[in-house]
């Protein structure tokens, strides 16, 4: 346990982008909130636009909670997308950098198994960096809420401040769900990245992209079909289609001069049952485990010094 914590800490020291990139995006949202409060940016609803202060006064108090959710969710989504790229490049580098700078010979002089090392790198990408991203989200959303809420209070309405904690808890729950879906759905993607990272001598990104690209082209030429391309496409976005209802939408709208907002109930919005029951989820996990095992084997026996 202590060893695993140390290994993950080592990863976070080497890869500061794990928290720095989400934090930079979070800071942008805080700056945007400040800009909105000071009237520099106008918030658009449909074809009208208004300052945040005007919006606060027109907002129906009963819809403040969904409005806050509609405010928080884009922050969560942007942070998750940014983190997805960070994790992609982290895995790409995870087993390659130590070979390139030859520090692998130092790490191999310590009494940790290759399974532990690859496991720690996998955990860093699927647990530590996502947890840090959730932390960044909480701080960002809290600051945005505080800035907006105080501005609305000054404009005469305390409603936004009251609805904050509940909306923040709800948004965080959705974000954690999103991350869990991504982690499970991306097991084969992450496994493939780690496998290539342990295998490639150079041009890791090329090795990641070239085999699936060649397969797609070969299938198209030889068979005239595109099953593999569909499989890859399904692998990238299919998980979210399975895990979220596509009938429910969050919205803010204006009617009769009052701004209304609605946010679907979680039970209707999230569909974990459908996600977990999908055979392609479990098939993907099985393939991913094979890739991960290959990465462990390569780190153990690869001898290129």
């Amino acid at each position: 346990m202590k060893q695993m914590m140390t290994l993950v800490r080592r990863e976070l020291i080497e890869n500061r982008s794990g928290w720095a990139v989400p934090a930079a995006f979070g800071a942008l949202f805080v700056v945007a909130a400040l800009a909105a409060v000071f009237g520099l940016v106008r918030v658009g609803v449909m074809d009208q636009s208004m300052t945040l202060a005007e919006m606060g006064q027109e907002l129906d108090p009963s819809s403040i909670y969904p409005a806050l959710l509609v405010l928080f969710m884009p922050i969560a989504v942007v942070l998750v997308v940014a983190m997805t790229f960070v994790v992609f490049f982290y895995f790409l580098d995870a087993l390659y950098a130590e070979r390139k700078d030859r520090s692998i010979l130092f790490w191999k002089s310590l009494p940790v198994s290759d399974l532990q090392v690859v496991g720690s790198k996998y955990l860093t990408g699927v647990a530590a960096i996502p947890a840090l991203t959730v932390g960044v989200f909480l701080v960002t959303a809290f600051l945005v809420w505080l800035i907006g809420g105080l501005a609305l209070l000054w404009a005469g309405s305390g409603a936004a401040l009251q609805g904050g904690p509940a909306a923040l808890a709800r948004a965080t729950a959705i974000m954690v769900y999103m991350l869990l879906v991504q982690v499970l759905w991306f097991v084969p993607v992450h496994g493939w990245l780690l496998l290539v990272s342990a295998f490639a001598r150079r041009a890791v990104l090329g090795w990641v992209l070239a085999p699936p690209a060649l397969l797609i082209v070969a299938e198209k030429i030889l068979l005239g079909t595109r099953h593999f391309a569909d499989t890859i496409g399904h692998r990238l976005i299919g998980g979210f289609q399975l895990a979220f209802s596509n009938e429910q939408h969050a919205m803010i709208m204006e009617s009769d001069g009052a701004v209304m907002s609605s946010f679907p109930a979680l039970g209707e919005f999230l569909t974990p049952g459908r996600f977990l029951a999908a055979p392609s989820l479990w098939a993907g996990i099985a393939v991913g485990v094979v890739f991960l095992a290959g990465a462990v084997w390569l780190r153990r026996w690869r001898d290129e010094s």
Partner: protein
Amino acid sequence: MNPVIRAQGLARRYGSTVALDGVDLEIPAGRIVGLIGPNGAGKTTALKAILGLGPFEGQLEVLGLDPRRQRAELMQQVSFIADVAVLPRWLRVRQALDITAGLHPHFSREKAEAFLAQTEIKRDSKISALSKGMVTQLHLALVMAIDARLLVLDEPTLGLDIIYRKEFYRALLNDYFDGERTILLTTHQVEEIEHILTDLLFISHGRIVLNESMDALGEKFLELATRPDRAEEARRLAPLSERQGLGRHHFIFEDRTRDELAPLGEIKVPGVADLFVAKVRRAAS
């Protein structure tokens, strides 16, 4: 007592190249063994097998463990420095201490701090900001603070200047070696380590060509310096090697007594470097 390293028929091929050609070896505890060989002789391949870093054929036990299957356990009792400058450059000195302490159950942070206190290395420096000599000092401090039974050093002082090299071996001998640990090291600078070695292993073309304790060396090998007019007599005694120096012919003999050689000129124990050249040439021919 069981030997620290026991190898039988240790072999490894890279394609058609034979790197190790059936090496038999036993190294008991408490020795400082120099593994000396020309480039490509199989030194690094042998060390990699011992450290579980590469595959091999034959039998090999290190501290009673199989380096192939029990590598993580083995590394609790074996430390090694593979080469200079393999410490991760993005790490700070303090973090290197933290991480080693977090990963190695036999690491003493106090000892490492004590070694570092004798250097000018700052705890907050990044390793990339340290000179090559300092990186080696840091690596040595980390390794010496590990209570290991076997220390393997592969060209530990390559690329270092003479002051750091001397300091490296001084620290190793005075602060680390306690008569129970075993040190196995390779180097090109044989002259610098011959006074600290207890045993000598020569390897050439994947085979061990000499395996002697330093004490036995002086009995088994003798160097004779003769005047040119007596060279022919010396040659008849079948020397291992011959070279010419300032008005003298130098011969190295194996298994000749001092009484046999004394009438021909001056006798001394050959230097390791000269002996190495003689043995390796002989093995090659």
